[in-house]
């Protein structure tokens, strides 16, 4: 289907099914129940983040997963995309289409410029160069240096950029909605379906962003399977040998960098489309670090890994940081008192405000023991089960790392 082999088609259909039925899948518990309040994640604001970060990490994976070039400044493109989108809202009106087109293009232009310089070096130098560029762009945005040149605020510094009633918005119709919309279809309009104790919310914005996730996922499969994808993997395995055979790897690298930057720009534009304001903090280097963490956790260099990683981190972030001490005491109430106190005291630093500690520990464990991320973990588990089932089968359980 669509030029994919049956395996990839299945994967694509799986992702489509996941994003379509996400409101059901993420609400396994009745809404008003105790478990529902703690573990349900099927509300629009969070689901939007799942798909947007999924898209972002898919793009990042095209660079890091295929070529092995670790960019530590990817959040810069996300921020550029957001700023471009908000500016389109300010100048043209709240239609999201020009905003998304613009954010992708602008991020593309920035990634051409940065990629051209940063790709002159590889390895650690590349990581540090991208980091330096991203920090420079963060400083520029944070103190609105361009704005100081031009005379009008461009990034609006600490306050962040948002749309004001006095903005021109030349294409904004008289009765068009004053929130991001797609030809009149408002991004935050939603319907709720109540079934028994369950409530499922379907939001236009979520499905709009999910459409781009599926599109991005499809494109990434095509790139993985294309001759260019093969070239990029050749760069990862041995760049020197590749250049000895007479192939110039530079254009391929730059193309991968730009594509990945445009994914990030689109994700940034979508973020602005969901909530039409943005600030420089989106570009800070810890945000770039988070992207890396997501890619690694899911499984860099695999197709489904980035989506899994982004979903996993955003889900856990939401769940873990909600847990308070009284929740813990409730959960472990069945234990004897002294044991309960001990368990609660051990777990407490890792939940609530301590979410980043959990993240750090999880991340390090994955790096140390499971460099292939969740996908590798899944493969190991299935391999073990298969081996148990048919012990006499010749080494057929080995699946390619996809």
């Amino acid at each position, binding site marked *: 289907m669509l030029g994919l082999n049956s395996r990839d088609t299945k994967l694509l259909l799986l992702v489509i099914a996941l994003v379509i039925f996400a409101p059901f899948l993420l609400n396994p518990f009745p809404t008003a129940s105790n478990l529902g309040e703690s573990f349900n994640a099927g509300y629009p604001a969070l689901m939007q983040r799942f798909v947007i970060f999924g898209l972002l990490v898919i793009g990042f994976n095209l660079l890091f997963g295929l070529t092995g070039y670790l960019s530590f400044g990817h959040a810069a493109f996300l921020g550029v995309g957001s700023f471009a989108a908000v500016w389109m809202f300010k100048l043209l009106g709240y239609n999201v289409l020009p905003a998304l087109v613009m954010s992708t293009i602008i991020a593309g232009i920035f990634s051409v410029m940065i990629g051209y310089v940063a790709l002159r070096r590889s390895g*650690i130098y590349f990581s*540090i*160069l991208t980091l330096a*560029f991203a920090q420079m762009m963060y400083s520029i945005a944070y103190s609105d*240096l361009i704005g100081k040149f031009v005379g009008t605020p461009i990034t609006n510094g600490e306050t962040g950029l948002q749309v004001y009633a006095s903005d021109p918005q030349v294409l904004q119709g008289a009765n068009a909605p004053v929130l991001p919309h797609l030809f009149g279809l408002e991004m935050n309009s939603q319907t709720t379906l109540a079934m028994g104790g369950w409530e499922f919310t379907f939001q236009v914005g979520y499905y709009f962003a999910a459409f781009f996730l599926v599109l991005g996922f499809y494109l990434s499969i095509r790139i993985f399977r294309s001759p260019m994808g093969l070239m990029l993997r050749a760069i990862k395995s041995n760049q020197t040998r590749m250049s000895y055979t007479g192939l110039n790897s530079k254009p391929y690298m730059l193309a991968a960098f730009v594509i990945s930057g445009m994914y990030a720009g689109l994700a940034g534009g979508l973020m602005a489309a969901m909530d039409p304001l943005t600030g420089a903090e989106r570009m800070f280097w810890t945000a770039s670090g988070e992207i890396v963490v997501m890619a690694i956790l899911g499984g860099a260099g695999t197709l489904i890994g980035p989506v899994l990683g982004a979903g996993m981190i955003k889900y856990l972030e939401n769940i873990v940081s909600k847990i308070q001490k009284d929740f813990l005491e409730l959960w472990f109430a069945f234990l004897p008192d002294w044991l309960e106190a001990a368990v609660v005291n051990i777990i407490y630093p890792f939940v609530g405000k301590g979410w980043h500690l959990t*993240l750090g520990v999880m991340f390090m464990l994955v790096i140390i023991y499971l460099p292939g991320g969740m996908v590798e973990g899944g493969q190991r588990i299935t391999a073990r089960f298969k081996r148990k089932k048919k012990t006499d089968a010749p080494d057929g359980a080995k699946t390619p790392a996809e």
Partner: protein
Amino acid sequence: MDEFLIQLLNGLDRGAAYALIALGLTLIFGTLGVVNFAHGALFMIGAFCTVTMQRFLNLSQTVIDDTQKDFLGNPLEVEVPYVQSWFGEAAGLAIQDWSVMLAIFLTIPVMLLVGYVMERGLIRHFYSRPHADQILVTFGLAIIIGEIIKYFYGANPIQTPMPSAFLGTWDMGAAFGLEANSVAYPKWRLVYFFFSALIIAAVFAFLQFTTFGMVVRAGMADRETVGMLGIDIDRRFTIVFGIAACVAGLAGMMYTPILSPHYNIGMDFLVLSFVVVVVGGMGSLPGAVLSGFMLGILQSFASLKVVTNIVPGIDQIIIYLVAIIILLTRPRGLMGRKGVMED
């Protein structure tokens, strides 16, 4: 002219911090070939050693003071720090006053231990893994260290006073025959500058004039050959890692009166020190120091009024601009050696 001098001093002092961190980074990189993203966290641990020392010296016991009465006529209960009751009031106060300096007795052992544990327990297992993995695992470690500090010390910056002898400014202008008070500079920043110059000199002397340092330098040049000569180079490199951690820790320890430490302080310094290392040339110790001071001074000069009037805000991005220009024209950095991290 006066403004120029002040910015020069500012640059020296800022450059000293950059140079110290970059020196540690380069030591680790040059010996073990590992890019340590947790180096900022080591800086932070040093800074929190000062905080811990200060808190430790302020531990108090409640004593009934017969000479004072509260409003009911009972003897007043006062909090007396242990150091004051042990060493007498004057000596105790002096000890508390100098706690930033005294923290050195805590910082050095703590940092050596942290460095040793980090190298033996974690980084050793990553020599054969790709560089990306090394970056990532140390990045994860930096997150964890930061969060642990946050758990114990809270998220807010902690004020740490400097010794009262170094409060206030020193009139540099008068010393150089300029108008009085034209170039007044905070004393502690001068102390910081001299302190870091001392540490840098000590590290270089250690590597240059001791047998241990000679072996380490040989190992940096060709690890395999040194190993074949029957020298346990791994053990020495572990010690070098400890020393590098110490350098970062001391830099952090002395920086606390200038910038109140908080759990993210290391991250803020880390990115800049990477730029410093890259500009100086990966693996080159003199390069790291040179580019640390150079970039510090450049950054200060860029914040001169004359400059900011022409190009507003240039002081915040000049370091990155210079880094990009240098990497484009001299890809190896200012003093980078051939063959070190060429790929």
